[in-house]
């Protein structure tokens, strides 16, 4: 694979408009002469967000009471939506093998427990994950577990485009099914939305495999650094226009990570994109979701905002590590009728 189809980074001159990479969605939505200016006008034309109202709505959704059969279904669905994650400097092949084992058999005491959607690791750990998964590696099939790799100089994104693209290509080549890239928040905050856009387009292209298929691209906005909800809406929209398959809240390395209001807002964006184009984009809150109770609030928010159709791993994921064990405890409680304890789920 070559970089011939990938656009070069934008060059700004005083008089010529910055022409952006001709991403299909953006051209269809904004129009033919895709420039930084036209993109910017488009993003600034999005309706504003009133933070208090948004947070009140999220809090309201959080009061839904999910019981009995709905709760049982929700717990299994949460497990199937988890990107089981380890993103530590101290990650080792052993740690990744342990993670994969947990992903495949979350609860050895109950074989009906579903598998998680994916394991999420740093790019250099992809070979270890692929090896550990073996035949269970879905590699595009529905019945297995995917390998997701964070890329593009995760978590800060502070590296040259060339490094980011190399990072991405290497992970895809090693067998990553999904790439979780970070946007350049500095560029976004300084108004260089064209740069952010072009980089996403380029990374998307770097996700292309030799056979012409693409690894799924999740675009991490790092909402904690974008700070305002207006920025989150614009960045979400930008990421979709540039070709992202998923928009993801956070790296997990910045506080606040995923919050219910910010996830609600991103779900509103994908709902609006669907209303506009008929195309469904995924959403992934990541970081900070540790309890079943919280995760169920997210499911409620998905169902009541984007719609029931989004309640599938191909359109909604949780980036989490400790969440899984809490879901398993709750699941055991539902199955046995008794409260379980941390000694009855595995430490991985």
């Amino acid at each position: 694979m070559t970089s011939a189809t990938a656009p070069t980074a934008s060059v700004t001159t005083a008089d010529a408009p910055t022409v952006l990479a001709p991403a299909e969605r953006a051209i269809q939505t904004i129009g033919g002469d895709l420039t930084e200016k036209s993109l910017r006008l488009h993003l600034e034309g999005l309706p504003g967000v009133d933070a208090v109202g948004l947070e009140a709505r999220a809090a309201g959704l959080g009061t839904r009471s999910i019981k009995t059969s709905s709760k049982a279904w929700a717990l299994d669905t949460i497990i199937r939506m988890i990107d089981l994650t380890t993103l530590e400097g101290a990650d080792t092949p052993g740690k990744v093998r342990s993670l994969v084992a947990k992903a495949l058999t979350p609860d050895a005491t109950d074989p009906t427990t579903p598998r998680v959607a994916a394991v999420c690791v740093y790019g250099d750990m992809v070979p270890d994950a692929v090896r550990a998964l073996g035949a269970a590696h879905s590699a595009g099939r529905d019945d297995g577990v995917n390998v997701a790799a964070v890329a593009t100089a995760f978590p800060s994104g502070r590296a040259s485009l060339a490094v980011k693209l190399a990072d991405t290509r290497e992970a895809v080549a090693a067998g990553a099914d999904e790439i979780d890239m970070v946007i350049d928040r500095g560029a976004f905050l300084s108004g260089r939305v064209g740069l952010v856009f072009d980089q996403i387009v380029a990374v998307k292209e770097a996700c292309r495999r030799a056979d012409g298929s693409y690894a799924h691209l999740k675009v991490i906005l790092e909402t904690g650094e974008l700070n305002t909800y207006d920025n989150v809406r614009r960045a979400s929209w930008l990421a979709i226009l540039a070709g992202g398959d998923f928009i993801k809240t956070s790296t997990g390395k910045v506080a606040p990570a995923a919050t219910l209001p910010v996830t609600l807002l991103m779900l509103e964006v994908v709902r609006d994109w669907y209303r506009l184009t008929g195309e469904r984009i995924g959403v992934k809150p990541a970081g900070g979701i540790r309890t079943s109770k919280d995760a169920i609030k997210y499911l409620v928010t998905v169902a009541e905002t984007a719609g029931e159709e989004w309640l599938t791993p191909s359109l909604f994921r949780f980036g989490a590590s400790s969440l899984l064990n809490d879901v398993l405890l709750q699941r055991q409680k539902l199955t046995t009728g008794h409260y379980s304890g941390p000694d009855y789920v595995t430490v991985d």
Partner: protein
Amino acid sequence: MTAPDRFLDYAPAPESTSILHLRDSYGLFIDGEFTEGHGTPFATISPATEKHIAQVANANAHDVDLAVAAARRAYERSWSRMSGADRGKYLFRIARLVQERARELAVAESLDNGKPIKESRDVDVPLVAAWFFYYAGWADKLDYAGLGANPRALGVAAQVIPWNFPLLMLAWKIAPALAAGNTVVIKPAETTPLSALIFAEILQQAELPAGVVNIVTGAGDTGAALVNHTDVDKVAFTGSTAVGRAIARSTAGTGKKLTLELGGKAANIVFDDAPLDQAIEGIVNGIFFNQGHVCCAGSRLLVQENIHDEVVDRLKARLSTLRLGDPLDKNTDIGAINSREQLERIRRLSDVGEAEGAERWTAPCAIPEAGFWFAPTIFTGVTTSSTIAREEIFGPVLSVLTFRTPAEAIAKANNTPYGLSAGIWSDKGSRILAVADSLRAGVIWANTFNRFDPASPFGGYKESGYGREGGRHGLAAYLASAPLEPARVAAPTARKQLKK
């Protein structure tokens, strides 16, 4: 475990009623005791099931006499002689007891009124506690209430409250009245007496001196006997404009101080630069909160014409996620209409809306067989002359009108004899403030709607009534200034020329 057909069909999550210990029958609460009434008792039912809840005593004129006499005695012998600090302590006690018994009160309220438990639990009852807590602190600080030093209590307050927020309206009435040093006879609405009677038990637990609060249940006759009683000094009423008008007539010339919180037909104005998702929520909250049984409901949606279709589409999609049904289910968004009578009125006015040419859309939701229900409904193509744009429906029915300019929005918003509340949705601060200045309404919500707080005065302009409830202003309804100082500008005996 079988997956539900739709996750959104959340499995039932009923609030337990085991917390309620209802009696078969309730008496009147007079002079600190429950007593039999002299009228024919009536039944209170659950509007969601039409099932009997309890028998309730009916106060006739004689009972009202007894209640007013008890209030008068309590005023003269204990309450008016007590220090403000001690009055405050009783109110603090009541606030705490309400918090302690919050869930029980919420369940009773939803059972008797039909409102969703999530509202009675998260809105009504917490505000009840907040109201008592807020006014408790005023009781020994009345010199700072804005009426000058040593303001006086009025005496015995006659209070008549509606069925839409039974316990909250009771708190709005009783808390400031007691803080200011008045004693009270209050009549809850005929269809929703239950929470007030549980509240009477709280007053007993608080050891509030007998007669300071008396609760007389009954219908319109009881209310009329109360407000027209010659020994009451103050009348406070929340309810329909028609009854408010009648009370204003009957108290004319009596010297009774009168405050009225009446009907409304609020405009909720959505500009094209509004934060759209929040505006949709605000519209929904504005008219479908409490089944639209809200005097300040945003029943007229005034939407800028260039975003009309977009707003209506989004609104319909949003309304399709509302869950109508068992008020005691924690996931219910839309509960029961409070009474058959009210349901008939909503149906009749909706039919008129349709007959007058407005386009009717009803949210798709299954209606239970028993009980009183009305699915969330939107009328588009409504004009300012439409009946449903002028009359208060007091139900989950939204009339959608359009405007082109801010000036037109203001003109249409003000084009009503009512003036209780209004909403403004825009991202432009200067426009919000200018529109807020121009709206003739007592409460303006900008980029929010239906927010209530004990510190925030509430009440209307024009035919929505007079006087304010809540805040420092709410105290003034229950106080009189100390006799005025001698005129500060007396006719001077000798004219003094200013030396140039």
